Each structure stands twice: as C-alpha cells, then as structure tokens.
C-alpha cells in the first residue's frame, strides 16, 4: 500500500512584480503586473510504507512547497494528494494526527517553558494515552539522550539539543509517516550522526515512512535508498541512489595541484586520447580530471600529465554524490 500518493500536483503563486521608478510605482497603483510562478509543476510521487525517501533540489526548486502541500499547510492549485488514505486539506485535523513534522528552521516547542511541559501539552493535543506515551517516549528520550534537557526551557538549549528535542516532539504520537524539512541544518557532525542513527532505528522498529529534504547529501547517503530530485518544480530523477551514481558517471576523479598555473588548452591537448573532462578548481593551478573508463586509463592519464607538468599534490577520488548532483543541475539531464 502506498502511504503517499500524489498525482499531478501543482502549486502556483501569483506574485506581483513592481515596475521601476516613481512613475512605475504610480502605474502600479492602477494596473498591476502579476507573474504566475509555478513552484511545483505537475509532480507524481508514490511512497510505500517503510521507505526513506530523500527529497533534494536547489534552493527554490520547490521542495518546501511540496512538503507544505503534503502536510496540509498549503492548498494545492491542482492535482490530488492522498496520504495515509486521507486528503490533507479536506480533513486536516484528522490527517495531522497521522504524521509528524520537523522543520529545521522553525521550532515546534514552546520557547519559554521546559521541554517536558511542551511534551506534556503535545501529548494532550495528540490525545496520547499515558501508557503509550510512557512506553514509546521513554525509548525515544533514551536514544536521543535528552533526559538531562527535559527540565530546561527551550530558549536555553543549544541548536543541537533543541533539534533532538524537536525530533522527539514530532514523535510523541508515534506517527507512521514523518516529514523532515532540513532536520540537520546547522548541526555539528556528532549530532548529525546521532540523528541519523535514531531515524534508522525508528524506521526499522516501527516501519516509519520518512520523507526528508536536506542540503547535506551525506544525510541522504546515510539514510535513503531512494532519492527524488527536483528541479524548477519538476521531478527530474526518482529512483535508487546507487543507480543515480552508476548511471551518471563511471570512473574516477583525479585532483591535480600543479606547481605553476596551467592553461586548460594545454591539458586538453595533452590528454586528447582519453575520455576526460577537465574542471578548474579554486586556483589556476588546481585542476580536476573526471576520467571515464578503466582504471588503467587513470594511471596512463596521470603519467601523461606528470611527464609535462610538475605537481605538488595529487588525489584520486570516486565521483561524489555532490558532484553528480551538481552535474545534473548544470547540464539538466539525467542519463537513464
């Protein structure tokens, strides 16, 4: 059974574009120029129970807008949404009992009151019985290690502490579906790892479906089997993460640090017999070669380059997911 069923979902925003200058401002008073902006453009999405889906895209690609439509905050312009068998907009109050939401940049907790008081209020709001609360939340609190924070007001917590409490708060009613909008934004590596481990744990234990957006692709690599890539409101890739990595590039990246600045043309000429793509780094003596093909190609290319230019450092890497995503956005195509 699909937990999330989205068909031809669309959201348009009407935005008012002002003319320039004083004369323009006067004209705006009478006739306004409206621009229709399609933030989410006819997307289809199906998510099964227990899946962990990474929803990624650049800023403004429409990630947050989608999440807000799926959680019932925004009303779609067109299309149908069925989540947990309900329409989020028609039955909002009933629907939100079956989901948990964490917005990394916005607090769900009450600012002035102790964390446990916030939990207590949310427990009432979600009508959670004492037994359910005790058995379920005891574990959550232990795993997230927030026991010592419970009697502190939220405003006295650090960001990492607060995020762990937010996560716990979103799980008070043990929802089968969890939406996380940038849950790890601004957190240090240790807290990130703790949160990832925790999400894996609840996914394994309760078969909680998780849809998360993030800018940190390490989150996706650690958690999600499936990624959905969004660009300008359209889904441009939906599938397994490894598939994306495999399809996009086979091969390796070689990072050269030359002693002296090097021209791109000379590098291209030198390596014209290889299938290689040169990209300049932050300085004129830093170059990255993406080599497709066998590993021998890599070593032949390196010897070719090093015979002519003196180098101070060289590194060989697998192409990172980040690199793949960047390529996709720059070139706008997905192979496969």
């Amino acid at each position: 059974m699909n937990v999330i069923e989205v068909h031809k979902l669309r959201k348009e925003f009407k935005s008012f574009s002002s003319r320039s200058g004083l004369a323009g401002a006067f004209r705006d008073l009478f006739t306004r120029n409206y621009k229709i902006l399609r933030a989410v453009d006819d997307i289809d999405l199906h998510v099964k129970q227990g899946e962990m889906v990474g929803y990624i895209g650049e800023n403004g690609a429409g990630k947050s807008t989608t999440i807000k439509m799926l959680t019932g905050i925004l009303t779609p312009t067109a299309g149908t949404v069925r989540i947990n068998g309900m329409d989020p907009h028609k039955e909002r109050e009933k629907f939100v009992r079956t989901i948990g939401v964490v917005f990394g940049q916005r607090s769900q907790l009450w600012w002035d009151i102790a964390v446990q008081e916030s939990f207590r209020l949310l427990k009432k709001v979600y009508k959670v019985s004492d037994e359910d609360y005790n058995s379920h939340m005891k574990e959550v609190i232990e795993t997230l290690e927030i026991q010592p924070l419970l009697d502190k007001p939220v405003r006295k917590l650090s960001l990492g502490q607060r995020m762990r409490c937010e996560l716990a708060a979103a799980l008070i009613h043990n929802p089968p579906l969890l939406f996380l909008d940038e849950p790890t934004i601004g957190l240090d590596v240790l807290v990130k790892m703790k949160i990832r481990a925790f999400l894996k744990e609840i996914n394994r234990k309760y078969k909680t479906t998780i849809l998360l957006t993030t800018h940190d692709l390490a989150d996706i690599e650690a958690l999600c089997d499936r990624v959905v890539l969004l660009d300008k409101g359209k889904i441009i890739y939906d599938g397994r993460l490894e598939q994306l990595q495999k399809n996009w590039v086979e091969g390796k990246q070689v990072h050269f640090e030359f002693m002296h600045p090097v021209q791109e043309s000379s590098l291209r000429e030198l390596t014209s017999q290889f299938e290689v793509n040169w990209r300049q780094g932050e300085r004129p003596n830093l170059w990255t070669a993406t080599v497709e093909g066998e590993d021998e190609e890599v070593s032949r290319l390196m010897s070719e380059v090093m015979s002519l230019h003196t180098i101070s450092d060289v590194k060989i890497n697998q192409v990172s997911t980040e690199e793949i995503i960047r390529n996709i956005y720059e070139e706008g195509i997905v192979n496969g």
Partner: protein
Amino acid sequence: MFYISIFFQYASQYLKTRLTYRSDLVVELFSDILFQAVNLIFILVVFGHTNLLNGWSREEIIFIYGFFLVPYAIFSAFFNIWDFNDRYIVKGEMDRILTRPVHSLFQIIIERMELESLFGVVTGVAIMFYAGSQLGLELSWYDPFVFLLMVIGGSFIYAGIFICLAAISFWSDSKTDIMPMMYNIGNYGRYPVDIYNNVIRFVLTWILPFAFVGVYPSAFFLGRTEWYGYAFLTPVMGIIFLLIAYFMWNAGVKRYRGAGN
C-alpha cells in the same frame, strides 16, 4: 470536550509561566488599573461641566462604561490577535499551527491568551455597582443571566470584528494600520449612540457594531425601554459576527501561502 480540556491545559501552563515572573504580573495589573482610572477620570471631567448628555446622566454614562469593560476584558484576555500578521504570517508560525490537530483559530486563541486582562471584569462590575447604587437600580433574579448573555454577545462582536481583520492578512500580507484604528473606534461604543450623527450611529450599529458592546445592552439594565429591542439583539449580533469571522477565517486559511525559508 476535547477542546475544553485542551483549553485548560494551556491555561494552566500559562499560569505556571506567569507565576514564575511575579514582578511582571504585578506591574501589568497595576498599569491596567491605572489605565482604567484615567478613563474614568476623563468621564468625570467631561461631566464636571454638564450633568446631562443628550438625556443621559453622568451615572448612566459611568454605568455604560463599567458594562463595556466586562466584554472588553474577556475580548482582550482571549483574542490577542492584533499582531497576527506579524507573528503568524510573516514569521511563518502559521505553518506550525497548521500541523497540529486542533482548529487553527482555536490554537491561536489559546496560545495568545492573557488571562490577567480578566481583571477588567472585576473593575467593570465594581463600577456598575457603584453607578447602579447612585441611580437606585434594583437587581432582579434574572439580571445576572441577562448580563451573562449580553457580555458573551458583546465579546463575540469584538472578537468577530478583530478575527475578520486578522483574516485579511491571508489575502494581503502587507502591513495595515487598521488594527489600532479599530481599537479607537471600539471606544465609541462606550458612549450613548444617540449623541452621534446618524451615519456614525448606523455604522456603530450595523457595520462595526461596537454599540452592542456598551450602550445597547446597558440600556436594558438602566431600564431605558426605548432601547430594549437593540439590547436583546446583542447576543444575536454576537453570534452572527462570530460566524462571519469563522467562515472568513476558514476561507483565509485555504489561501495561506506560507512564508519562505
């Protein structure tokens, strides 16, 4: 039932928080009383020169003022939505509200309540008793019940108007200065409407019916039979305005566009 229990949960949490900041609470109560004293002195000063205002005596006006304070106190305790646009739309707090399984308007009411404003009820009733004894008014057995009905009607009218104004934010996110202006207009309801010209009187009765918060219901207790019809319209108008506000709010929530991250 659920809503009542949630209300008390929030109220007890609110009291707990307030009691930890004791000095704040005292200062606030004190400034509240001072504010009401200034208003009362203003009325006394006006009547220092004349004892009758278009057929209304000084004590009657004081009585109306006292009555007005009661629904107004209830309104200010529970409907602190004058900064709704700033707090919930611009800052995006509405997102959070909409992910919780309680009606959005109700959540905002219980989140923003300021129970210390209820102190105004005490002041209001005291003023009414003082003015009433000066006027030699008799208290019948049904008066407290009618009073309750009128107060509820009056606070509903206030709430309805201000909820409608807050709901405008769903359509236009630019700031407006309507809210403070409306607080001013609300004060006109404290004076007998027949001292105003007909247009203002019409507005205060049917469009922004603040007259139903002060003068019309008080007329019942003052025994001014010529206003009885209006007096008994108070709860009706209250329900109508609150319903309008409720539907407008629900329509507005559908239009909510959220704040960008």
